[in-house]
Structure formats: C-alpha cells, structure tokens
C-alpha cells in the first residue's frame, strides 16, 4: 500500500476506532444504566442545572476516556516500531472524534429504552462502521455508491485524516468541517433529548 508497511497503515485507523468505541461506549452504557437501571440520572434532572451542563459533563468525561484509550494504542504502536508523525492536528482530530461519538452516546442512551437495544445499536451501527470506514483496509476498492455513503460517515474522515497526518501529509480541510458539523448536530440533539422529559 503506497509502499508503506501495514502497521503504518493500520495504526491511525485503530486509533480512530478506539477513540470512537471508547467515547461512545463509556457515555452510552453508563448514561443508559443511570437512566434506566440505577435511576441516578433523576438526581441530576431534579437539580437546578441545565440540560446543556448535563450533556457537556457526560461528553467531556467520555472524550477524556476516548483520548486516554487512543494514547495507549499510540504508545503501543511506537513500542512495535511504527514510524508515524504525531502533531497538534493529530490530537485535535482524536479529540473531535471523541467529542462527536460521545455526543452520539448521549443521544443513543437517552432515546434507547433498554440495555439490549443499546447493544443492538452497537452491533448494527458502530460495529459495521469499524470495518467499512477505512480502518483496516482502504475503501478505494469498494463499489462507487458504497464509497459515497462511507464518505458521509465521520469515522472515515477520522481514519483518513489521522493517516494523512501520520504519513506526513496535510489532511483534507473538509474533514474538519465534517467533524465540527457532526459535533454540533449531535451535541444539540443530546441537549434536546435530555431536556425532553416524558
């Protein structure tokens, strides 16, 4: 693949993947449990704090965990001898990826009414993204109409941008807009679903 070895190719993808998984799951699982099982969410809902604060708290906590998970993968990659470039933009993209998937976690946790359906969501939405979005292999060989669809998914932009930076290139500025767009929309959706009590 462009002469680089597979480790060089796969490490940025795995970092994007673990940023997504960790931030989505830690927020999704704990908020869903807190809402349906422990009922501790009510303590926050009856306190004089805004839905915005509740969502921001959850999303930042999820993002922090996502970043830590990514740093661990990055550390391991260096141990195994991957030669990749890491700079400010690299971490900014990890942060934005974490932020948007943590926001998705809030939306999922607040709208899905059982733990079983939460794991169904992971199986049918999160897991396919892991394989399709250029994580383990390039999406160039896929049929064209699927490629257009995949280009719309945020994880594709995360792995492509991280890969570009890691290999010493500039990443496409449009990806940054994609991250910001998803982040704003999903965060706002999170605030709306928290505000909307039944």
């Amino acid at each position, binding site marked *: 693949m462009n002469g680089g070895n597979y480790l060089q190719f796969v490490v940025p993808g795995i970092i994007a993947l673990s940023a997504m998984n960790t931030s989505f799951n830690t927020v999704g699982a704990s908020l869903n449990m807190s809402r349906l099982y422990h*009922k501790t969410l009510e*303590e926050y*809902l*009856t*306190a*004089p704090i805004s839905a915005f604060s509740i969502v921001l708290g959850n999303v930042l906590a999820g993002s922090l965990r996502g970043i830590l998970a990514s740093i661990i993968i990055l550390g391991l990659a260096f141990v195994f001898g991957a030669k990749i470039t890491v700079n400010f933009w690299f971490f900014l993209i990890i942060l934005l990826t974490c932020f948007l998937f943590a926001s998705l976690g809030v939306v999922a946790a607040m709208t899905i009414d059982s733990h079983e359906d939460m794991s169904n969501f992971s199986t049918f939405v999160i897991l396919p993204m892991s394989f399709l979005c250029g994580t383990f292999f390039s999406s160039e060989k896929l049929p064209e109409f699927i490629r257009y669809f995949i280009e719309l998914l945020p994880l594709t932009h995360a792995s492509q941008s991280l890969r570009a930076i890691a290999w010493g290139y500039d990443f496409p500025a449009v990806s940054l807009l994609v991250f910001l767009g998803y982040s704003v929309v999903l965060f706002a959706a999170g605030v709306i679903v928290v505000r909307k009590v*039944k």
Partner: protein
Amino acid sequence: MIKINQLTKYYGKIKAVNGIDLHVGGGEIFGLLGPNGAGKTTTIRMLTMLAKPSGGKAFINGYEITRDLLKVKKEIGVVPQYMNLDIEMTTWENLELHGRLHKMPKDDRRKRIQELLDYVELRDRAGDLVGKLSGGMKRRLMVARALMHYPHVLFLDEPTVGLDPQTRRRIWDLIRRMNNDGMTVLLTTHYIEESEMLCHRIGIMDRGQLIALGTPEELKKRVGEVVVETLNQGCTKYKFFADREQAVKYARSLKQNVIIRESNLEDVFVELTGRKVGD
C-alpha cells in the same frame, strides 16, 4: 404551598392522571393514598418535573412547574421510591455531590452535611460506600440528600416500601420531625395505616382521579364511623352507621353473628373505590 389545577397526564390513550385539583397548605403532611397504578407516582413525577403534564397547571410556592423550572427545583426535595443513590460513592460523597449540583458554597456544604448526618443518625457511616449500607440507612440517606439544599417542600414516593417495622417507624419519626421543623410534606403510600398515622390530610386516588379528600376523621365520618360486618355464604358484607346505637339496632335485626367495630381508612377506601388496595 402546593396548588394543583386540573393536572392531567396521558400515556398514549391511558389517562394515568385525569384532571386532579388539590391544594396543600404550608406545614402540612399530605398523603396520596391509592392502589398500585392509581396515578400517585405520576402525580409526584409531574410535580418534581420528571414527567411533563399533558394538561393543567401546578404551582409550588407560587412558581409554575413548567415555566419556572429552576426556581421550583430549588424549592423542592425529592425522595423517589427506588434507591437511586450512587453506590460507588460514600455517604458523605453522595451528599457532597448533591450540594455541588445545587451550587452550595463549600463551607455551607460541609456544615449542612454534618448537620444532616446527625439528623438522620448516619454520622458513623459517613465514610462508608453506599453499597454497604442497609436498606433503612439508604432510605435515611436519601431523605438527608433531599434536605441538603434547604427545600421548603419535600416529596416522598412510597417512603417505607420494603422496610421492616422498626425502620419504618424510624422513617415516620423522621418525617414528623421534619414537619415540626416547618417542612411541607407530600407523600404517596399504599399502606393505609401509614397514611392514618402520619398524614394531616389524605387524598384517595383511584384510576387517575382524586376520589376523596379530607382528614382521616372526616373520611371515616363520610362513610360512617361504625361498621357492621356480616358473613353471607363466604362473602363479607359491610354496612356503615353514623354511631354505635344505630349499628347495634341493625345488628339485632339480623339472625346471625355479626362483628361491630369502628371503621378504618381501609373501609373508607373499599367503600369509595369498590375494591381492596392491591387489586
């Protein structure tokens, strides 16, 4: 203190609460009594802003619950019927978190936590994880948590469900003590004796409606203070009388053994709803 005007909640086609009117005065202990599914919890959930009313209005200390959200939240303390303390935190930390959520200054928080731990007799368990506390201690801690930010109205949803008799009485004492200190209390229960022991006034709810309202004595007077029980072919019949004289007169006219006794709230409930609590 609490004013409820035609409060209504639909879940799809089901009318969980169907237009109730109620006025609870300051310093009162008011009990909503009713079978499971009568709409008591839904009423409390609307008043604590965990459920959105489908219709009607409710005011707490003059603030409308759907408009003055943040102000209402400062006025009320909520003790839900299920344990929702954070079990991964200690007794102290649960109270500390509540204080922070209510933006209490640090010194104020410290002082209040000490005070409340004494109040609910949990001072020696302050550093223990909540998971290690007994059911009664958890319930007391939930009461302390609800009191943390000096609310004026306390909502308790089934405060003694699943507790042993000793613990139950302790919770009752705690509720009376808070009331003596000026707290307005609205509680729900399906234990008849609990409402009779504790509440100044009682509202009986059934199928989403408030079907009777008054002091326990008033409610008993309404159906008759003396009851004559007769057993006919395995089915007990109740007949109510205003005083003992009339009851005895009636009993003498029957040609079988009867039981004459004072009526209780359960009789009131059965007479008004036509079924037993828990049906």
